[in-house]
């Protein structure tokens, strides 16, 4: 623990000397900037006692401490921009009376070269891709990975993971542009390992419950091999912004194909489970508009071959594939200049649905975010959540955010999950937690 704090302090001291770093880098020529952030977060798990919707506390508390620092070097010379950023992440946790775990990871975050022409721009290298207009849930921004190892602890934008890709934009008049993206190799969402705090129920069930050994993840073949292609056309008009999007991608969340050979003497299953990513086409559109101070934003996507768990034992791998229509639409409004309300309705419609499939044919849900200033622009109360309407499946987050200075921010709050094992949030109903953290910008 002391080591973690020392290392984080070292990161912080490095952060505190950006000018020195910038001067040293100036020798390289061009314009250099060093910037980044440092984030320290500590959480205490409360659990829910395992009952759907229950708020009973667990008898023992989990606790953990996570620090993350990032340094970004941005170099500009002769129309070419080079950006390199690196992350250092340190984690300490104690789970339900198990032994302490310490992890540290240093990695390249983004690293790309960007060329800007009069009407075109190209970016080559490791980069974060963000598409779509919806705030809390996007049905378009699904062809590059997110980091779900801590599930929803971080915001959607913080969860987005960089990929190696080539992206280019062709700019038209009035802010319109056309964009293409090619990712030579598919990268899946980052998920917690079986048995970890935020591991998926379905994976836990196969690997820990049935005792099947997990094989390495596969992707389905196709005309573009393992690569992902996406394109979009963005239009900006006086009354609305509109985009038409297409992605030839892989399903980000792996499906699990169980291959059970038989059962041993103790009754445990013998066999393997194969995680795999199916090929998908996603054709979508997004719009943004505003009228009378109310922002209206929405996305609509038609996704081919989405995977769903089936209870029909005759279905190979217990996964059915269906085309699905996914939509999200909502409004945002600001009261008295500062209180921000965002409400979105999402709906999944599964084509050719049958009664043996685990999800319902329609999966409506509501997401919301309310930000209320308590003291000027410095202290904010934020309430965010998502609630499925066809089953108990719930996520709430209540957070207090205090901007102590322009560079330091304190965050504290709690997260609550409720629902059944097969629910997106229900599977984490034992993971209710209280947390506190500090964020420093440099």
């Amino acid at each position, binding site marked *: 623990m002391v080591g973690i704090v020392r290392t984080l302090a070292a990161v912080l001291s490095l952060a505190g000397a950006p000018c020195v770093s910038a001067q040293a880098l100036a020798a390289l020529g061009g314009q250099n900037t060093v910037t980044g952030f440092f984030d320290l977060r500590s959480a205490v798990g409360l659990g829910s006692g395992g009952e759907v919707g229950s708020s009973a506390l667990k008898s023992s508390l989990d606790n953990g401490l996570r620090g993350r620092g990032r340094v970004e070097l941005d170099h500009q010379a002769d129309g070419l921009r080079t950006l390199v950023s690196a992350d250092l992440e340190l984690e300490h946790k104690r789970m339900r009376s198990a032994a302490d775990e310490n992890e540290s990871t240093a990695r390249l975050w983004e690293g790309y070269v960007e060329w800007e022409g009069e009407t075109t721009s190209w970016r080559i290298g490791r980069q974060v891709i963000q598409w779509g207009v919806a705030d809390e849930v996007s049905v378009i921004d699904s062809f590059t990975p997110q980091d779900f190892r801590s599930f929803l602890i971080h915001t959607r934008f913080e969860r987005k993971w960089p990929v190696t890709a080539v992206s280019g934009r062709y700019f038209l008049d009035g802010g319109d542009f056309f964009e293409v993206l090619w990712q030579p190799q598919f990268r899946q969402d980052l998920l917690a390992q079986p048995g970890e705090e935020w591991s998926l129920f379905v994976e836990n069930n196969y690997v820990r419950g049935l005792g099947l050994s997990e094989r390495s993840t596969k992707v389905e073949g196709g005309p573009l091999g393992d690569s992902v292609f996406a394109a979009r056309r963005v239009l900006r008009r006086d009354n609305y912004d509109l985009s038409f999007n297409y992605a030839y991608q892989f399903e980000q969340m792996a499906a699990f194909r169980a291959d059970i050979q038989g059962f041993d003497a103790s009754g445990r299953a013998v066999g393997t489970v194969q995680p795999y990513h199916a090929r998908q086409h996603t054709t979508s559109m997004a719009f943004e508009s505003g009228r009378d101070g109310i922002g209206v934003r929405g996305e609509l996507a038609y996704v081919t071959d989405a995977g769903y768990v089936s209870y029909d034992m005759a279905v190979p791998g217990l996964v059915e594939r269906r085309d699905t229509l996914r939509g999200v639409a909502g409004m945002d*409004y*600001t009261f008295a200049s500062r209180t921000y309300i965002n409400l979105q309705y999402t709906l999944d419609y599964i084509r050719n649905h049958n009664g043996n499939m685990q999800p319902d044919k329609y999966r409506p849900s509501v997401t919301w975010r309310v930000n209320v200033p308590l003291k000027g622009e410095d202290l904010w109360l934020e309430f965010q959540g998502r609630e499925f309407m066809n089953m108990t499946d719930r996520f709430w987050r209540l957070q207090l955010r205090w901007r102590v200075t*322009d560079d330091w921010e304190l965050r504290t709050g709690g997260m609550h999950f409720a629902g059944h094992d097969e629910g997106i949030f229900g599977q984490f109903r034992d993971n209710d937690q209280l947390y506190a953290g500090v964020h420093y910008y440099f």
Partner: protein
Amino acid sequence: MKRLLMIIGVLCPLLAFAGMPAGNLVPRDIIERSEDRPTGKDSVSMLLVTLTDKAGTKRQRGLLWYHLAGEQGDLDLQKFFYPRSIRNIATFNEEVRGAEDLQYLYLPAASRVRRVSSKHQTWVGSDLIYEDLQKINLEDWTFSYVEQASEEGFAVHVVDCQAKPSSNSAYAKRRYYIRADGSYFPSRIDFFDAAGQLIKQVRRTEVQAYGSALYERFVQVNDLRNGHQTLMERRWVRVDTGLPASLVTVRQMEKGIEHFAEPADVQRLVSDETSRMVE
């Protein structure tokens, strides 16, 4: 009797124009001329913003403001370079004549340009709201001349603007104090809510001419509801520099401040100002 008729004949026109400014300008024209006053074909300014809350706690912001006058309407891009927590945030305003302006916000953390839907939102934590960055849409307001007065040593036209329901304004009324020296420079604007309460005041001081364009050095915004204050100091302004149109676009919002190259010495100026603010 003839004499009496002559007096009435002289007085009637005067009475009819009582409450009207000199030169037979109707109040709407005064506002229109003020909104369309010359600001140069283009300009680049550096602004230092000091936010002060009721307790006296101060926060600073630094930004570059790019302005381009166009036939279709004016374009304005604001790029923040200080503090680090909001570095590279950008806002953009495109004037749409006869309708609400188009406004965008770029958040580097989300790597996304977002359309600003509510002009009632505060502008980057200041006492200004997005509506304050827009020109007034004349069709959405009714105008009345209040009086001629004096403001900061200058004679001013005092004009009230009453919001029509179509305005969707955050304010029920604005009272403009517009210089009567022919420059139509708005020295002061008072903002009122639906109950007639004064809720906000904007004052512009130390006005200087740059060719035909007038730019103030200080803009002070007082929110009377919470005692919060925003002071914007124009550290420098360069007018009619031949700013390329490509630098005042939505696309430009996404570029980091370190990639701005207009004017040529902007990086040094940003660096110097940042160092000064850190101290």
